[in-house]
């Protein structure tokens, strides 16, 4: 795999070249926040972001997605029969994704693409998408990726990783797909040894800047039932107002609901992001609810990420240390503290 150089003044040209063959999504500033947007022409790609407010998971797993369509008109032959909603999966590039968010998509992948069942929309979007990552020179105070198997220049799930070296980017191709993208984007200048050394130093420097660390080493061997019955859940959940923000901003939260919507005789079956923080999530039609209490739902979210996922997939914790939930929680519930409580129980 090759290491190339993209001069900053050539970046726009590189993105434009990619747009010839791909739908390109990149961070764009919107008010106080950054968001991944499809570049259609007049958007300004802005890479001066620590991270986007929402991870780009919606590009593989949209917040709302039509699954099927149907007709309820009894005079039609096909009445009541569901058909796949027509969809296109154009070749796409997610440009500027942070390493934590790319890793998050890999963590989600085991759920959507498992040996028994493959989610067709996830698989098609994943396979038609290339990921150009941007390493983090300045991690935030709430970033703890290095504790959970990642890092500011972690390569997992990426096709290319960019190192911002001031006046140029070192573009490290990580897959054949990445090599092809660089070629298609007209990037041909090889990085010299000195530039590579600078990139290595940058990586080290960035890792050293991460001051937030959480322990995870004992989670796997802990008994799930012991953690479930731990005495600290009431305290962890005490301030929670069940707003669901943590699940909404989380790059690894994947739970969804399925609903039918009808207008006159035309209908769609749609899936929408859902949240285990909401009591309706588990409410039976009978009225019974296995997680009717707030504390049960808060416990479920943390147990899923830090224990059930660990046990089920042997793939580490389902948290990439992006810190979004820490930053967004209106009552300051801090997953880093829960890591400590669970690991040290």
């Amino acid at each position, binding site marked *: 795999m090759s290491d190339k150089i993209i001069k900053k003044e050539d970046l726009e040209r590189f993105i434009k070249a990619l747009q010839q063959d791909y739908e390109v999504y990149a961070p764009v500033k919107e008010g106080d926040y950054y968001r991944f947007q499809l570049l259609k022409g007049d958007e300004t790609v802005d890479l001066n972001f620590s991270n986007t407010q929402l991870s780009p998971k919606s590009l593989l797993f949209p917040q709302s997605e039509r*699954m*099927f369509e*149907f007709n*309820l008109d009894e005079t039609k032959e096909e*009445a*009541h*029969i*569901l058909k*796949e909603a027509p969809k296109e999966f154009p070749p796409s590039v997610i440009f500027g994704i942070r390493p934590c968010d790319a890793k998050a998509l890999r963590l989600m992948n085991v*759920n*959507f693409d*498992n040996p*028994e*069942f*493959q*989610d*067709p929309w996830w698989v098609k979007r994943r396979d038609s998408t290339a990921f150009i990552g941007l390493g983090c020179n300045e991690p935030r105070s709430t970033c703890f990726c290095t504790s959970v198997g990642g890092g500011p220049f972690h390569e997992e799930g990426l096709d290319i990783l960019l190192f911002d070296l001031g006046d140029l980017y070192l573009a490290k191709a990580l897959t054949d797909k990445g090599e092809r993208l660089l070629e298609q984007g007209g990037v041909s200048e090889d990085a010299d040894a000195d530039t590579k050394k600078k990139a290595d130093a940058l990586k080290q420097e960035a890792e050293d800047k991460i001051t937030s660390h959480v322990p995870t080493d004992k989670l796997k061997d802990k008994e*799930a*039932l012991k953690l*479930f019955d731990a005495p600290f859940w009431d305290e962890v959940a005490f301030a929670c107002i069940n707003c669901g923000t943590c699940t909404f901003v989380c790059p690894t939260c*994947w*739970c*969804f*609901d*399925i*609903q*039918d919507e*009808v207008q006159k005789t035309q*209908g769609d*079956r749609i*899936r929408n992001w*859902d949240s*285990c923080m909401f009591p309706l*999530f*588990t*409410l*039976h*039609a*009978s009225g019974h609810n*296995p*997680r009717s209490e707030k504390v*049960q739902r808060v416990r*479920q979210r943390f*147990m*899923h990420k830090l*224990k*059930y*996922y660990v*046990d*089920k997939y042997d793939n580490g914790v389902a948290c990439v240390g992006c810190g979004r939930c820490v930053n967004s929680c209106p009552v300051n519930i801090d997953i880093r503290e829960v890591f400590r409580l669970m690991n040290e129980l």
Partner: protein
Amino acid sequence: MNNNPYLPCPARIEEIITETDDYNIKSFKLIFLNKEDEQQFHYRSGQFCEISIAGKGEIPIGIASSATEKGFLLFTVNKTGVVTKYLHNMKEGDVVGVRGPLGNWFPWETMEGKNVVVIGGGFAFTTLRSSIVFMLHPENRSRFKDITVVYGARSPGLLLYKEELWEWEKRDDVNVHITVDATEDPEWRYNVGFVPTITEQKITTSEDTYALVCGPPIMIKFTQPVLEKVGFTREQIIMSLEMRMKCGIGICGRCNIGDKYVCKDGPVFSLAQLGELPSEY
């Protein structure tokens, strides 16, 4: 199943049977519209399907028919929520969707050559009916030793599959104990008493025996000690769970108990397996 695991196969309602005298429970006999869907549908007793009604949604319902019954699927549905209420008002000939078979099944390989006790209460008798029909089929009967059924409901009118119950009761290759909590019917020829009580009277040995237990939580709570008293281990007591579901294939995330999804890793669990999971169901 087709390539898209979320896409229901269209099926026609062939017959609707009102099961109970409170009209709250109906059975729906469904026939696939496409022959290929029927040919690809291989199931075992204990599994369930997502029944889909376009415009209303989907519901997870245990398969009440047995694979030994060809050409149709039977689902017995309690009128409870949005989809079941709508389904109860549908008519023969209407089109619904079927997605499945989903989930695991009763441990048929393990139970082969053993005695099987089937204990059911109320409307939780659907996959148990499937199991009884399966075991009593001439091709399968010799694969099991004694088969005993304890089935109860609050009143005679609330029992499911009454005609079949009376038929099974007459057979000599299955011991059937039908019971009701109470009845004023002077003609009632069967037991009166709660399921745990009748179980205590009729089930006296656990040797080489598996118990399939489905019913309301209160019935299960009081039946379990009765079975344990005659020596059933937690491995020998098999149960089927209900949970709110959407995808039915272990992806949407809502039906978990600990690290297990009821839709995919269940709905059938032994009591021993449940003991290793949080009691959050």
